């Protein structure tokens, strides 16, 4: 078991190196995508900061809470997809029969497939998340340690959700748009204060669009220095992740392959 795990870590390292090399063949494009994502996140944060100078409290949330929310969700999303870039394009890979490329190798399909792409823009998200939290919130060391843990939890949540939404393609066929919309909804709800939503909307945030595990528990955990809230966040993320993995492997039995011409890039 330990040897197997070690081998997968080596494989992850090799894929990350190769993925970076492939991206750095076009350094300008790689850097500009990363910077563009950093700026995109920053613009939203500036908008919120301007909002809070006018209305200092929004349903119990202050500007620091929203910065924390953006930092944890951006960093988590980036960590989920920077080295597991194929998670975002899973629906398309299934629809176009491109899982064939990974099925011919002697590795567990899902981790191997997810590792197959390094995405430039997501490094911009990670950079933004960590720098926004460090530069604007000025956390203590223990807060920062908790923040790191929470970004991992949110990364697990987003990765699991991308797998779950992408796996829909096994049942719906050409489902890229539906999967994208579902994922966009998750991203949108993950960047708004959870306190804005009440009643049935709250139910949605912990079931169909499980953004609550990113927009509520992590912020509360950092606000109250609570390991309990942090563990809720991780448990919710793990539940979504397990659901995604189960859906993928059940769906895989319906996989129909394809005959598209392609190259790996």
């Amino acid at each position: 078991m330990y040897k197997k795990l070690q081998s997968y870590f080596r494989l992850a390292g090799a894929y990350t190196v190769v993925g970076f090399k492939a991206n750095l063949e076009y350094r300008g494009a790689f850097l500009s995508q990363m910077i563009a994502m950093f700026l995109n996140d920053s613009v939203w944060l500036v908008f919120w900061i301007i909002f809070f100078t006018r209305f200092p409290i929004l349903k119990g949330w202050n500007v620091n809470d929203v910065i924390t929310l953006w930092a944890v969700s951006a960093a988590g999303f980036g960590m989920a997809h920077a080295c597991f870039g194929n998670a975002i394009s899973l629906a398309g890979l299934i629809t176009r029969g491109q899982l064939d490329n990974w099925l011919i190798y002697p590795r567990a399909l899902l981790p191997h497939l997810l590792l197959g792409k390094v995405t430039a823009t997501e490094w911009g998200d990670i950079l933004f998340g960590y720098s926004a939290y460090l530069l604007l919130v000025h956390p203590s060391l223990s807060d920062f340690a908790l923040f790191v843990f929470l970004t991992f939890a949110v990364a697990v949540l987003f990765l699991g959700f991308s797998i779950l939404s992408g796996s829909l393609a096994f049942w719906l066929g050409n489902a890229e748009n539906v999967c994208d919309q579902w994922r966009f909804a998750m991203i949108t709800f993950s960047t708004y204060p959870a306190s804005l939503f009440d009643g049935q909307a709250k139910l949605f945030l912990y079931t169909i669009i499980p953004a609550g595990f990113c927009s509520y528990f992590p912020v509360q955990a950092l606000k109250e220095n609570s390991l309990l809230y942090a563990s809720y966040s991780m448990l919710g993320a793990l539940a979504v992740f397990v659901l995604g993995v189960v859906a993928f492997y059940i769906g895989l039995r319906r996989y129909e392959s394809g005959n598209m011409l392609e190259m790996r890039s």
Partner: protein
Amino acid sequence: MNAVELDQLKKTFQVKQGSGFKRSSKEIVAVDGISLTVPAGQSVAFIGPNGAGKSTTIKMLTGILRPSSGSASVLGFNPWDQRSKLAFQMGVVFGQRSQLWYHLPPRDTFELLAKVYELPPADYKIRRDMLIERFKLSSFLNTPVRKLSLGQRMRAEIAASLLHKPKLVFLDEPTIGLDVIARQELRDLICEWNRDEGVTVFLTSHDAGDIESVAERVIVINHGQVVLDGSVGEMRRDYLSAKLLTVAFHDRPASFDVNGAKIIERTDHSCKLELDTSVSPVSVVVPQIMQLGEVADITIEDPPLEDVIAHIYSSKHSPQQRY
């Protein structure tokens, strides 16, 4: 020992038909109860027209697809339940899909594959260097794949598929799009590997030349069923002896009558002949054609595989003839 054993392997797909709300589901049979065995070390050409079920069969044998019914054993493994174990011992090349990274040199993909197949570093280096030498990769090993010619790319593809010393290699149209020289180089390499390392080769191709050069046995499938299973020698004798000659003349040619050549199309300045090379070889017929008038152009082609298969159907061969 058999490298491949198939017993009544069948694969069906559900296809939606119609439009709007009037849609119905129809079952399409892609592979219809194929049974065959391939001894270890044999090179087999698995041929058939588009949509015959070749790729679907290969995908089941490599564990990519699950069959609807029937069983298969590849190198002693059930391909879809023991996919990972089988993958350590098999190599796959899809002519239409690349396992090389497009923006990186082949060397980087080799390094990555060494990790994927868990090759010990020392063994990997020996094997890589040997493949570089045998496949003559050294001149472009550090050139990004996007800048390689198709022939160079396919040589690198096949070398990549042999990196982990597979016992069985599936080659799905490996010569597609290659020029005559690159095609022949690749065929020679495949033959060499089959001969020297005893690798079982399972080849699909639409090119009669690939089949003649590489395979010792040919299996023809159509509509998901085996319609012919025999040696390449038999097939060459029975079905691949025909050549199509298209000749264009500057002036109206003299009348022409050669034993074994049949005119299938004729205009004032050109004619198309079907030549039975077992009766009159090309080397005999072409000089005679040159004497008919001033030749502007001449092309010699194999008949389309579809025609060969149609010929097989019309012949007296019974389906599922065993090798």
